[in-house]
């Protein structure tokens, strides 16, 4: 395939392989050395680097925002949106007052392919793969649901203990290197103020908790901010979202990412389910990638703007 020579010629309106996305990351860093750097926070089970782009205008260990896409590998519109977010940040910094103000105060960390083994597998073996690719001892079934492997209500209802299930929680908390790497990074950084984990395709914006009906202590603020975010999102194409706590909006989900991040004290912890507004599900046509990314960006900006104006 014709490899783009720079990120301006990268085609954001089509789905890309993992090597194309990793090349894009290196090009973006090379083109924006004063704003973007790449941190490898660990390795996947099959030995792929877990790449995180850091967008920073200086300072040391500034308060930070985390965004991840692709933790469920078949949800292709999320990795594609993450790639578009990265370009949007470098394009708008210095031009758009809002993102400029955020970056003059905070760092943004973006992991586009959070489950690289699964993503590679969806391109080469099984388009419908969701989980990681680590074998499960004693079972012929492979992989753990990386959004059930976190130390927050692990083992409670809302995940499966069956290795063959799509929601298999794994043998123990943080047993997947893709999860453990983020856990270690977040703990060592210790100054994250917002954490956003992105899925598709139920069109929802959710905050903790997923494993319990007990409301989180910041429920009112998180609910109001979610409402604002999805109102901004809908302003572009009218895409309607529902919002609320995970357990009240989608279903009980234990051991999920943002329950753990919230319990670490990261108040603005959210998870998105991006669109399908039609009947394509995970096979969303590529021409919907950019509209998806653009509307989602409006919601992300609402969350990041609020975070930067309410650093705690």
């Amino acid at each position, binding site marked *: *395939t*014709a490899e783009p020579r720079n990120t301006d010629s990268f*085609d954001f*309106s*089509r*789905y890309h392989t993992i090597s194309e996305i990793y090349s894009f990351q290196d090009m973006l860093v090379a083109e924006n050395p004063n704003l973007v750097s790449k941190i490898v926070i660990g390795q996947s089970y099959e030995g792929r680097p877990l790449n995180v782009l850091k967008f920073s205008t200086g300072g040391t260990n500034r308060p930070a925002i985390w965004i991840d896409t692709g933790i469920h590998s078949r949800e292709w519109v999320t990795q594609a949106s993450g790639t578009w977010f990265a370009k949007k940040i470098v394009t708008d910094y210095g031009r758009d007052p809002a993102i400029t103000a955020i970056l003059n105060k905070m760092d943004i960390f973006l992991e586009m392919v959070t489950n690289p083994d699964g993503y590679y597998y969806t391109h*080469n*073996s*099984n*388009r*419908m793969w969701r989980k990681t690719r680590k074998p499960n001892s004693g079972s012929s079934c492979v992989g753990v649901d990386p959004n059930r492997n976190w130390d927050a209500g692990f083992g409670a209802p809302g995940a499966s203990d069956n290795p063959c299930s*799509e929601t298999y929680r794994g043998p123990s908390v943080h047993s997947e290197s893709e999860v453990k790497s983020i856990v270690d990074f977040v703990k060592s950084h210790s100054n994250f103020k917002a954490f956003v984990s992105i899925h598709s*395709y*139920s069109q929802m914006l959710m905050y903790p908790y997923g494993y319990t009906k007990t409301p989180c202590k910041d429920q009112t603020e998180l609910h109001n901010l979610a409402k604002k975010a999805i109102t901004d999102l809908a302003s572009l194409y009218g895409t309607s979202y529902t919002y609320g706590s995970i357990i009240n*909006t*989608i*279903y009980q989900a234990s051991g999920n990412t943002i329950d753990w991040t919230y319990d670490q004290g990261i108040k603005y912890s959210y998870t998105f389910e991006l669109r399908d507004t039609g*009947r*394509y*599900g*995970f*096979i969303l*046509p*590529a021409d919907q990638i950019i509209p998806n990314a653009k509307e989602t960006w409006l919601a992300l900006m609402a969350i990041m703007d609020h975070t930067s104006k309410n650093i705690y």
Partner: protein
Amino acid sequence: KETFEGHQVLRIVAKDETQLSLIKNLEDMVEFELDFWRGVTDVSTPVDVRVPFHSLQSVKIHLESRDIEYSIMIEDLQVMLDEEQQEMESAAR
């Protein structure tokens, strides 16, 4: 490479909580080898499930015998996947 010829994705709409719990029970029917794309949430939100070709008839009979409404969201998943692959390759070219 895993292929999905004849696999359909059904969009199931529950009329009430009773039907919703019947749909939820499908999750435990491992013999159907179902893949829930969008799980059971509430009555107002449809459930999308990929059904392998070999269990299509059984699943449809199971739903119809309980008067649970469904529509075919994706007629043949492999056809869509082939189109997706072709689009990627032609765009890359």
